[in-house]
C-alpha cells in the first residue's frame, strides 16, 4: 500500500509546493511571521518525501505518474528514475538548509513588509525546480523552468539597488535562453509530433540526420547552457550572485544551478541519446574544449575578484565546467561518474562556502576579501566551515571535491585524453590560488585596532545558530561525503544512474 503511495510523491511535491506558496501569500495578510514557518515545514516534508522517492526507486525501479490518468504521449507524464531521484534529494536537501539559513539573513537584509512575498516566491522557486527535475515532458519542463526562473528574477531584484540591474540582465538573458529552448522543442515537436521525452526519444531514433533535429539540439543545449551558466554564456551569473541577498545566492548557487544542469543532462542523454552524440562526436567534443577553457579562464577571473561573492560565482562557473567536461566524455564510466558526483559535491561545498560568507556578511557586512583580516578569531566556526569548503573545492583528499577530481581524471585516462588531465590539475592549482588568498587573510593576518583589545566576549562574535547550523552541517558533509564516495558504496547508484541515462559502457 505504502509503495503505491510513494508513486504519488513526485506530483505531490510540485502541487503542494505551489499551494504552499499561495498559502504563504494569504497568511501574510494575518501575520508576517507565519509564512516562514509554513515554508520551513513544507520544505522539510518535501525533503523527506524525496528520500522516500529515492528509496522507492532504488528498490522498485522507475516511477511513472500520468497526470489526470491520461496515458502518454497524450497526457503529461512524470518519470522518476535513479538520476532525477538523486538530483531531487540533492536540491531539496539544499533548499531545506537554505530556508533554515534564510530566516536571520532575510530579517536583516529585507524590509519586513516584503517577507511574506519573499517566502512566497522562494517557495515557488523550490516548487519550480522540483517540477523541472521530476517531469518527463519537454513542454512541462519549459513551464516549470519558467516558474523557477521568474521566481529567481524576483528574488534577486528584492535586494534593490544594483541587484535591480543584475536581475534585469538575468531576465533578458534568461528569457533568451528559455526562447532558445522553446524554439528547440518546437522544432522537435514539428518533426516528431510528441512532447513526451520517452516517446520523443523513440521517434527521433531514425531521423538523426534531419537538419531540423540537429538545429533543435543546438538550440536546446545553448538555451539550457545559458541557464546553467556554461561559459561563455555565463555573463549574467556573477552579477546575479553578487548582488542578490545572501539567502538567495545560497539557493541559486546550489538548487537552481543544479536543476538546469540536470535538465541539460536529461535532454541530451534521454531525448537525444548517446547514439546521437556518437554520430556528431566531433561537435560534442567542442563541449570538452569549452569546459577546459572555462576551467582555466574562470579560475583566473575568480582570482581577480576581491568581492568574495563574485569570486565564488566564478568558482561556480568553473565547477559547472567540470560537470560539462565529465559529460563530454560520455563513453567513459569514470567521466560520467565524476560529473554526477559533482552535482552533489559541488552543491554541498559551494552551499557551505556561500552559507559561511552569508554569515560573515550578516555579522560584519564585509564583502571585500581584503578586509577579512583576523576574522578566524572572531568567527572561528564559520571560518572553519569556509576553510573546509575551500579545501573541498581545491580537491584535497579525502574531501568531497577530491572525489570529483579523482573520477574525472580516471575518466580522462580511460579515454586517453592527457590534455584534459592536465587541465583538471591546473584547475585545482588555480582554485588553490584564489581560495588561499581568503584563507590567508582570515587565518594569518590580524587586525590592529581597538576591538582586538576588548575582552574575549566582545571579540568572539559568532553567527546565530540558525545560520551556523546549516553551515556546519554542510562542512561536515564535505568530509563525510568525500569518505563515503571513496568507499565506493555509492557507485552502485551511480551505475544505475548511468544506465538510466541510456549509456551502455563496454
Amino acid at each position, binding site marked *: 500500500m505504502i509503495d503505491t503511495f510513494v508513486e504519488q510523491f513526485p506530483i505531490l511535491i510540485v502541487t503542494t509546493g505551489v499551494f504552499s506558496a499561495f498559502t504563504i501569500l494569504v497568511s501574510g495578510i494575518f501575520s508576517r511571521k507565519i509564512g516562514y514557518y509554513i515554508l520551513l515545514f513544507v520544505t522539510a516534508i518535501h525533503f523527506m518525501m524525496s528520500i522516500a522517492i529515492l528509496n522507492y526507486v532504488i528498490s522498485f525501479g522507475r516511477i511513472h505518474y500520468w497526470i489526470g490518468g491520461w496515458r502518454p504521449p497524450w497526457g503529461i507524464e512524470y518519470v522518476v528514475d535513479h538520476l532525477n531521484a538523486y538530483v531531487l534529494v540533492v536540491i531539496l536537501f539544499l533548499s531545506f538548509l537554505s530556508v533554515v539559513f534564510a530566516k536571520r539573513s532575510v530579517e536583516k537584509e529585507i524590509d519586513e513588509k516584503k517577507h511574506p512575498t519573499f517566502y512566497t516566491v522562494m517557495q515557488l522557486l523550490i516548487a519550480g525546480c522540483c517540477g523541472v527535475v521530476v517531469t518527463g515532458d519537454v513542454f512541462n519542463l519549459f513551464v516549470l523552468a519558467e516558474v523557477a526562473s521568474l521566481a529567481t528574477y524576483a528574488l534577486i531584484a528584492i535586494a534593490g539597488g544594483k541587484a535591480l540591474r543584475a536581475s534585469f540582465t538575468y531576465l533578458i538573458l534568461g528569457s533568451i535562453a528559455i526562447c532558445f529552448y522553446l524554439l528547440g522543442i518546437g522544432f522537435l515537436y514539428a518533426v516528431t509530433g510528441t512532447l513526451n521525452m520517452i516517446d520523443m526519444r523513440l521517434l527521433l531514433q531514425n531521423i538523426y540526420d534531419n537538419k531540423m533535429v540537429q538545429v533543435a539540439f543546438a538550440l536546446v543545449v545553448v538555451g539550457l547552457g545559458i541557464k546553467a551558466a556554461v561559459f561563455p554564456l555565463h555573463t549574467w551569473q556573477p552579477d546575479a550572485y553578487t548582488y542578490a541577498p545572501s539567502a538567495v545566492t545560497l539557493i541559486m548557487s546550489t538548487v537552481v544551478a543544479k536543476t538546469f544542469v540536470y535538465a541539460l543532462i536529461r535532454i541530451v542523454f534521454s531525448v537525444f541519446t548517446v547514439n546521437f552524440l556518437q554520430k556528431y562526436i566531433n561537435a560534442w567534443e567542442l563541449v570538452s574544449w569549452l569546459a577546459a577553457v572555462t576551467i582555466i579562464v574562470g579560475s583566473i577571473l575568480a582570482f581577480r575578484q576581491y568581492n568574495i561573492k563574485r569570486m565564488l560565482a566564478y568558482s561556480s562557473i568553473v565547477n559547472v565546467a567540470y560537470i560539462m567536461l565529465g559529460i563530454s566524455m560520455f563513453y567513459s564510466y*569514470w567521466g560520467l561518474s565524476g560529473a554526477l558526483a559533482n552535482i552533489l559535491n559541488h552543491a554541498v561545498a559551494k552551499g557551505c562556502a556561500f552559507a559561511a560568507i552569508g554569515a560573515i556578511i550578516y555579522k560584519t557586512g564585509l564583502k571585500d576579501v581584503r578586509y577579512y583580516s583576523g576574522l578566524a578569531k572572531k568567527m572561528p566556526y564559520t571560518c572553519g566551515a569556509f576553510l573546509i569548503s575551500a*579545501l573541498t573545492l581545491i580537491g*584535497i*583528499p*579525502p574531501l568531497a571535491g577530491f572525489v570529483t577530481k*579523482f573520477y574525472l*581524471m*580516471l575518466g580522462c*585516462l*580511460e579515454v586517453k585524453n592527457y590534455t584534459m*588531465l*592536465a587541465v583538471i*590539475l*591546473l584547475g*585545482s*592549482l588555480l582554485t*588553490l590560488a584564489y581560495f*588561499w588568498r581568503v584563507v*590567508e587573510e582570515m*587565518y*594569518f*593576518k*590580524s587586525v590592529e585596532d581597538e576591538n582586538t583589545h576588548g575582552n574575549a566576549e566582545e571579540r568572539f562574535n559568532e553567527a546565530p545558530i540558525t545560520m551556523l547550523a546549516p553551515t556546519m552541517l554542510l562542512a561536515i558533509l564535505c568530509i563525510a561525503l568525500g569518505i563515503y564516495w*571513496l*568507499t*565506493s558504496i555509492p557507485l552502485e547508484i551511480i551505475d544505475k544512474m548511468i544506465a538510466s541515462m541510456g549509456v551502455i559502457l563496454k
Partner: protein
Amino acid sequence: MIDCNLAPLFTVISPAIASMLILISHRHPNIREAWTIIATIVTFSFVISMAPKVLSGETVECVLFEMIPGVEFAFKVDAFGMIFAITSSSLWILVSLYSIGYMRSLNEHAQTRYYFCFAWAITSALGIAFSKNLITLFVFYEILTICTHPLVAHEESQEALAAGRKYLLYLMTSGCFLLAASLITYSISGTTDFNPRGILNSEVPEFFLQLLFICYLLGFMKAAYMPFHSWLPTAMIAPTPVSGLLHAVAVVKAGVFGIIRVICYVYGVELTYHLGLGLLLACFASFTVIVANLFAIGEDNLKRRLAYSTINQLSFIILGVSLLTPFAIMGGMMHITFHGYMKITLFLCAGAIAAITGKKLVSELAGVGKRMPITMVAFTIGAIGMSGLPPVAGFLGKWYICLGAVQATEFFNQASYLAFIFVVLTSSILDVVYLFPIVRTAFFTGSNENLEREETKKTIYLFMIIPLLITATFSIALFIFPNALLIFDLAEKAVEDVYGGWLR
C-alpha cells in the same frame, strides 16, 4: 569488510585524535601539551610493537575499503616503511618536549594551531610510511602539504606568508604530478600496490615509462632536489622545531621515501636499470649533492645553511638508491634515520641558540660556545656526523653507499660508477668546510664580555637542552649499535625483499 590487524590504523590515527583533543583543550596549555606528549608515546609504542612481526616476515596489513576497483585504502607495514615510521615517531617525542620549551620561552602566539598542525603532520607522515599503495600515499601526501603550511607561515609576517605561498605552490604542484603519475600507473597496470618486485612491466613503450618516471620525480618535489629545492631554505622561517622535525625529517623524507618506493616498489630495481633511469638519477643527485654544499658555504643564516645541508643529504640518499645495488640501497634507507637524528640535533641546537641568545647568523656566533657549552658540544657531534666521520652514525650511511658504488662496478660491469665515490668524498669535504667554521667561531673566538645572562627560567631551558642531548647521544649510539632502533635489521630485510633474498 575490515579484515586485519588494526595496529597500523591506530598508529596513524592516534596523532589525529590527539590533534582533536588539543583543539578542545586550547584554553589550558598544560593539558594541551599533555595530550601531545601522551600521543607521542602511544604512537611510538604502536610503531615499535609492529617491528618484531615485520622482521619475522609476517605482513601487517589493514584494508579499510576499496576506492576504485583494484585500489584499496589500505595500510601495509613493511620493513622500509617501518624505518621511516620509527624515525618520525621516535623523534616526535623529543621534538615535542623541545617544542614546549621553545614555544614557551619565546612566548609564541597561536600555539594551539601549532600543536594541532604538528600532530596532523605526524599522522600524515606515518600514513605515508604505512601506505599500501600509491593512492593512499597520495592522500596523506596532500594532507601533509596542507597541514604544514600553517607551521611555515606561523610567524604571520609578510615574509612568512610569502614563504608559505611558495611552499604551497611547489608542493601542491608536485602533488598534482604525483596524482597524475599514480593514476597513469593505475591505468597501465590495474593496480598501484607496492610490490618489492615492481608493478610496471616493459610491455609499455620505454619512452613512456621514462616520461612517467620524470612525472614521479616531479611528484616527489618534497625531496628538495635541485633545481626544485628553493622552497626548503625559504621554509626555514618556521619555528625551529618545525624546521627540525618536518623540514629535516617528516616532510622531506616523505619525498625521499616516495622516490625509493617508486624505484624499488613500483618500477622494480631491474626495470629501473633496464630503462637507464638509475644512472640518470644518480647523476642528477650528484649534481645536487655538490652544488647544495657550495650554496651552504655562502649562507650566513644558520638555519638556511642547515637547510642546504639537508638538501645535500637528501640527494645523497637518492644517489644511494639510484645506484641500484643492495649495499647502496641499504645505505640510503639507513641514512634516512641517521640523517634524521643528526640533522635534528643541529636544528635543535640552532633553535636553542636563537631562543637563548637571539642569534640567528653564523657570523654572530662568536663566544656562544662558552655560554652554552653543552649545546655546542651536541652541535659538534652533529657536524661530525654530517661530514661522515666516525664515530657518528653518518659515517655508516656514507660507507654503505660507497660500498654500493663499488658493488655497482661489479654488477653492471662499468667502472664509471666509481666516480660516485668521488662525489661522496667531495661532498664530505665540503660538509667540513661549512660546518666546522661554526664550531670554531663558537668555541675559540669572542671575548668574555657577552657572558652576562638574562633572567631565565631554567626548567624551560631543560626542555630544550635534554632532547638535543638525547639526539646527539643517539647519533653516536647508532654508530656503535646500528641496530639500536632496529634500523639495521629493517634495512637488511627491506633490501632482501627487493632483491629476493640475495643478501644472505
